[in-house]
């Protein structure tokens, strides 16, 4: 027993020292960025902020994207939760606001919110109050490996319609090139297909009608059609072998390794593919291309409509004031310009996009500027439960175990069940 007792005492002592915190104010900042080059700049920004604000310490914590989404609901219920958390806005944000776990940032953002893109700020506004500081925007579209496309005899610039895409896939397959790489294990990379088709088919009105439950909601004709079109692509078996087992970082890495001609990507993958490629270099700038998600004949959506993310930071209830102050620093012009210069993101600070160094990222910024309807990711926009069902169902379709009707019905059922 004495050994046990000693062990227990030692354990208790350890537990106590681990619980001790520093005397100064610590801002706990939880991020999900996997790109070490970008994290390095963030760290410098944090150290910079600490230097300007003596007595404040910014502590960075990291969770991988999927782990973060899985853990967030329980993290938020903990009393020593992180002070700053990552957000994609949308319905998930709304449910967090309803749960009362976020600080209202409206007062803290007076004076600088007008410097940020209005659409981005609007995305973080719930019932007239601003709950998040947006720092980046992105667009979903096809990122291509020009060399491999050429090998299959496909000109990426010629892919304008869904049928063009199907044709390209067939050609690439015939040439022995893997047409598309996708991170099916994480599910959301596959839901982009279905949702972007819906954006093209129905535009903004269709989505808003579905939210209100009109026209059959998400089981209505537009969404059925999205499923049917996606099924056409799935039937061609366009994805890499074992795509349902690839997590997104693996898939992006595989694209960076030159293993497939295309990836339906978030624009920020431009940089991530370099970091995640085996050689840490990825596809070179002159070999990388982009085309917008193809249009669909008869679609109600405008070709300039975009699907993409609006990313920002939330401050959790009870966080020290310094958390909001740090975010102000984080979206200041200098920092945003610096991140833009590294081509890590499309900044939200008006004018900072001038700093984007690569033509690739400048094109994305131009697309977003042109867009009149920027649809947020469905899996975030529709709230925690319905969003996950969209991911589940579209992945099942990609795996061949659900048809268009079942997908639409599963999503509508989830809407009916609520959260």
């Amino acid at each position: 027993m004495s050994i046990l007792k000693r062990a227990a005492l030692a354990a208790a002592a350890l537990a106590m020292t681990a619980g001790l915190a520093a005397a100064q104010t610590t801002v706990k900042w939880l991020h999900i960025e996997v790109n070490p080059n970008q994290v390095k700049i963030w760290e410098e920004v944090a150290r910079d902020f600490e230097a300007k604000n003596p007595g404040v310490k910014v502590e960075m914590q990291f969770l991988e994207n999927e782990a973060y989404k899985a853990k967030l609901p329980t993290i938020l219920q903990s009393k020593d939760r992180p002070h700053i958390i990552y957000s994609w806005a949308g319905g998930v944000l709304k449910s967090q606001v309803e749960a009362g776990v976020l600080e209202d940032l409206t007062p803290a953002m007076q004076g600088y919110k007008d410097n940020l893109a209005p659409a981005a700020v609007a995305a973080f506004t719930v019932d007239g109050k601003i709950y998040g500081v947006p720092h980046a925007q992105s667009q979903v579209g096809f990122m291509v490996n020009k060399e491999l496309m050429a090998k299959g005899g496909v000109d990426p610039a010629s892919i304008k319609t869904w049928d063009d895409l199907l044709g390209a896939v067939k050609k690439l397959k015939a040439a022995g090139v893997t047409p598309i790489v996708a991170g099916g294990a994480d599910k959301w990379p596959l839901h982009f297909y279905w949702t972007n088709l819906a954006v093209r088919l129905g535009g903004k009105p269709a989505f808003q009608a579905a939210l209100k439950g009109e026209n059959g909601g998400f089981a209505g004709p537009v969404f059925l059609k999205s499923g049917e079109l996606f099924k056409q692509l799935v039937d061609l078996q366009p994805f890499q072998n074992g795509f349902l087992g690839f997590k997104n970082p693996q898939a992006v890495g595989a694209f960076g390794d030159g293993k497939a001609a295309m990836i339906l990507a978030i624009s920020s993958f431009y940089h991530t593919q370099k970091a995640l490629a085996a050689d840490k270099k990825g596809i070179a700038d002159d070999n990388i291309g982009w085309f917008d998600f193809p249009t669909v004949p008869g679609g109600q959506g405008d070709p300039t409509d975009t699907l993409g993310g609006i990313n920002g930071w939330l401050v959790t209830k009870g966080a020290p004031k310094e958390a909001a102050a740090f975010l102000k620093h984080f979206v200041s012009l200098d920092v945003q310009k610096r991140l833009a210069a590294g081509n890590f993101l499309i900044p939200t600070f008006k004018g900072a996009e001038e700093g984007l160094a690569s033509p690739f990222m400048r094109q994305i910024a131009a697309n977003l500027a042109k867009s009149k309807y920027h649809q947020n990711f469905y899996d975030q926009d529709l709230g925690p439960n319905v969003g996950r069902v969209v991911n589940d169902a579209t992945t099942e379709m990609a795996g061949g175990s659900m048809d268009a009707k079942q997908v639409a019905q599963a999503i509508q059922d989830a809407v009916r069940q609520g959260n």
Partner: protein
Amino acid sequence: MLATVARRSMQSGKLTAIALFLPPALLLFTIFVVLPIAEAAWYSGYNWNGFGSPKNWVGWDNYRFVFETRAFGLALRNNLLIIAVSLIIQLPLALTLALLLAEKFRGAVALRMLFFMPYILAEIATGLIFSFVYDGDYGLLAAIYRQFGAEAPHLLASTQTSMLAVLIVVVWKYFGFHMMLFIAALQGMDRNLIEAARIDGATRWQTVRLIIIPLLYPTIRLSVFFAVVGSLQLFDLVMPLTRGGPADSSQTLVSFLYSFGVMRMRVGFGSAVGVILFVICVTFAFTYKRWFMRDE
């Protein structure tokens, strides 16, 4: 006189002992085991995200939603599959190995230990090791396929094979435990009976079939019991391998509860799944004990 004093003090000593020794266990058990399961029954009537207190009463809706969810059916099927494989493959394998290794020969003990080793490894570590084994690019399986010039299948990535892959790992991890159960039983067995059979001219196979296996029935029943209970709890192993996917094809009841209840903080829905799992566990334990373990 002395005796009554002694008895009285003994009586009060009894009470002190009860008052000091019992409450910690009862309290811990009530707070962390009994109350939660009772609360699960209560929460399962609400649509609740865990914040504040449950207000939105929905009656039996959560149970209906559970049964309507396709993944739940798959999870149930997979749990049955695990049980079936435990009975049809794992149990005979464990029994055969026990019969071979209960005998004394050089290396027998080392082999027993080797076969038992997977059982003490954490499920998480086992799952990760096998996600390497199955990896389509770097994995062992892929390397074997490449030897033959074939392209490796991504076992974990197909709805057709994900569960098969999980089942192989289940057998790998747990057969050694069942083997040890049998070896322990074999070593406790009356050697005289077996010797007598030998002397009477029974062949080895006859001895095993007619004498040893009947004597092992209680252990076999126990082994089946653990296989079923283990299947109902299986979670840690699935998470690193497939997280229940793709398309829920390798979901188990607990991984279903985790990904549909905990990850989405649908306390009511998750509690309903918990209650269903509880009912399955309790029903099974009672019927099994009553029907098959009566004599123990």
